[in-house]
């Protein structure tokens, strides 16, 4: 099983998913992020899914859960880089990523986080 690295840049935790996600990796990421948020007091999380070829209901639910957990640490989560085919499929699957914000790319995601009051 592969682990997804978490980088801290300023007040933001940056996660770029570059592996073919299996359920255990997503759950591990969730735990790692919670630990990192508690340790660093970061105020934002950016999850880059540019390289992610599919988001199924489990992965989608986990992304939404990460958003909820982050909020408990006073941090906001932005999912960036969703592929058009993934967006179409997620919608048809019936999944709405409630509670997480999305942005076109990492730059816009960062701007969204920095604009928060």
């Amino acid at each position, binding site marked *: 099983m592969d682990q997804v690295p978490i980088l801290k840049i300023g007040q933001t935790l940056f996660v770029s998913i570059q592996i073919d996600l*299996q359920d255990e990796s997503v759950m591990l990421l969730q735990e790692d992020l919670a630990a990192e948020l508690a340790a660093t007091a970061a105020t934002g999380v950016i999850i880059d899914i540019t390289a992610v070829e599919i988001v199924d209901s489990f992965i989608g639910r986990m992304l939404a859960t990460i958003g909820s957990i982050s909020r408990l640490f006073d941090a906001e989560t932005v999912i960036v880089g969703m592929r058009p085919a993934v967006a179409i499929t997620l919608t048809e699957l019936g999944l709405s990523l409630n509670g997480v914000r999305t942005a076109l790319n990492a730059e816009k995601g960062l701007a969204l986080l920095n604009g928060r009051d």
Partner: protein
Amino acid sequence: MDELPIQSGDDVVRVRQHVRNAAASNGLSLVDQTKLVTAASELARNTLIHGGGGVARVEVVKSANGRTGVKLHFADDGPGIADVDLALTDGWTSGTGLGLGLSGSRRLVDEFELKSEPGAGTSVVVVKWSR
């Protein structure tokens, strides 16, 4: 026809990759590939978690009017599903999930057939055709 085991999370990833390759090399568009792979991911996870493991079969098929499609068959010898209609309802879940796995994957494919009986396992066959 290729047969792949589903006994672990790694196997689910391998099934996804195999389905992706089959869909890409048989003329499915990128969106259709993504839909089929997502459906395969949902169904393979069901086979693993609810069926206690099983197999996935991946087959390239031809329709009467000459279209190419990718057919997937997921089979397990698990406890089966008592009420198939209920299991296909949006939001119905046997566990902690969202209840979108079966109903959602049905929307992502062109053909969907689920056979199950309590104690006799579950079999799901889906087909996605090239346009």
